[in-house]
């Protein structure tokens, strides 16, 4: 059920946030992401996305994840308030 207009987390710029719509990709990456709290419906915000792994805010924690991983997380962009 991949949602319309969901984009990979890897494409978000710093300070943009979105709601996780889906996680695609291999089993192992999936489980890793789920364990750290990447689940549908959660808000995730990008703090850093320039060089090297991204740094995102999720549930009040800070998680670094590689671009490959961030491609697998599809988010619906929240409009800037």
């Amino acid at each position, binding site marked *: 059920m991949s949602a319309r207009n969901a984009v990979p987390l890897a494409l978000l710029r710093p300070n943009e946030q979105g709601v996780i719509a889906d996680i695609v990709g291999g089993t*192992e990456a999936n*489980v890793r992401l*789920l364990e750290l709290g990447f689940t549908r419906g959660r808000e995730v915000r990008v703090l850093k996305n320039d060089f*090297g*792994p991204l740094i995102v805010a999720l*549930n009040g924690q800070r998680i670094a994840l590689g671009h490959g991983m961030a491609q697998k997380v599809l988010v619906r962009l929240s409009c800037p308030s």
Partner: protein
Amino acid sequence: MELAHTTQTVTIAVAGNPNSGKTTLFNALTGLRHRVGNWPGVTVEKKEGRYRDPTSGREVILVDLPGIYGLGAYAEDERVARDYLVGERPDVLINVVDATNLERNLFLTVQLLELTPRVVLALNMWDEVEARGIKIRTDLLSERLGVLAVLTVATKKQGLDTLMEVALDVASHSVREPLRIDYGPEVEEALTRLVPLLESVSELATKYPLRWLAVKYLEGDEHLVREVEDKLPREALAEARAVRAHLRERLGEDPEVVIADRRYAFIERILCDVVERPQEVDTLTFSDRLDRILTHRIWGIPIFLLLMFLVFEFTFALGNPLSDLLEEAFSWLGDATGEYLTDLGVHDTVVSLVTNGIINGVGAVVVFFPPIFFMFLAIALLEDSGYMARAAYVMDRFMRAIGLHGKSFIPMLLGFGCNVPAILATRTLESRADRLTTIFVTPFMSCTARLAVFVLLAGAFFPDHAGLVVFSLYLLGIVVAVAVAKFLRTFVFTGESAPFILELPPYRFPDVRTLLLHTWDRAKGFLRKAGTIIVAIVILIWALGNLPPGVEEYSEESYIGRIGRAVAPVLAPAGFGTWEAGVALLAGVLAKETVNSAFSAVYGVDPAELGTALADHFTPLAAYAFMVMTLLYIPCAATIAAIRQETQSWKLTLIALVFTTLIGYTLAVLVYQIGRLLGLA
């Protein structure tokens, strides 16, 4: 260390997420202190500690499991934890959760509860919960999960007595069934068909809770699927596979995603009723602002290098003056003891054993305790402050360039302290190729024992540039590790690197007491070695140096001289083809610090005069080549044992030994020969 289990003892395992304060709680309970780190896998070793219940006097064995996020078993440490829980069946499981982040922490909790009902929740960091104005209805949480919960603040030792009381209470009562989560009609139907199939195999039925196993099978858990499919008879196997395929079809996506979603939904429903958060906007914290600088795409690496440089400066600026004091103390002790024993009329041989053998030998190692202590302190400071995870982040790109994982960097950095825990720390690496490569290159990281040798030689031969010389050796170790890693990943251990995902814990001001405890804990191993294995080696060297009877002490005719002479011709191209150097290197295989003790024995001098004695036997160039050899050749016995344990293969271990020695020898020869051509001899 396996502890004997009697009927009186209760075994309690402690599980929880990394950064949940699990290890702090374990330490507070047992007083068996060990390292606390900020990333998964510092506690890779199965740690056991004892706790005596003050009221009943019962003996409790506590087992500290690795910090894990779930029971997915993709990473080595998750598998370690899961195998322990399934195989050893502890009486009680204390699940330490970070109460400020129940959403994620309960993801592990419900998986534990699905596996065993004998769980007690430690709602840790409760002071933090109160400070942030989070309201948690713990009674309701207990009720909904069917588990007792205790509020704790592990850092302040609050709530721990109650926790143990409750845990012991759970241990002595029978409990109900494991937790059942409603996974929705499709999954439940699949489970209903699957459980009887598993039940028919007694091997599985006695080992695992069947519903849990069935869920894992549907999730496609690699290890368990393999085990189940090996044991199922043919028809049952076909049916089990059909059930899983059918479920995937009905759901239209991977069952494991749906199962995880439902697990989270189950948690969310509970938390809606249980947790009330004040309107917390996830604003940028102090940590974030610090991260903007420390993980900056341009500044991150220079800052990291600067920090490393400061670590070295700190180590030597504080350590060296103390070393000088210890050196004088040992010289005095040797002289005074010698005189005293001679006055008593003790035989010369015994006097020589005590002064030349034991006091000088042990002294040659112990005088370097101060820089070693400060090196460990610096590493503990990096860990406890939260910087270590950032170092892995900053280095990820570089590590990828050489075919490794950002996380490989942590064991390599730990290698500067001691290669043994460093090799154990590779367990956090999910991919086997990453892991084996990291194990192979970690011994090139210069540990504190080698540091003792470098400080001695650099001080004797390059007094004005000792720091620089030592730093150059560390750098050489890194360069060799990088080159070897690249080679191994390209030709030997090929395969995908695991994806990079790592929690960055908030920066913290380390607690001084904890910091000193960690440091002391690791550094004391060094002193213990000095008191045991090194004394033994020193006595052995002394004996070989005084036999056969009638030879002059440590002469070339003594056994040790003959052994050294046999090795010497091989070492000649590297500029130190003397029998003494041969002996020192052989002794160094047992423990690197013994190189110093061996020198002090074969030259017959105390630690304070060692530098001068060396200057008569080595040219500065040869001394440098010798240090290169010491850095790279065969790792010490303890590291060899660690490599064997972690690779589970004698063949790989042997390859590693031959490989390191060849590299060390080749480079030492190159350094010496090129240096000679340049006219540096």
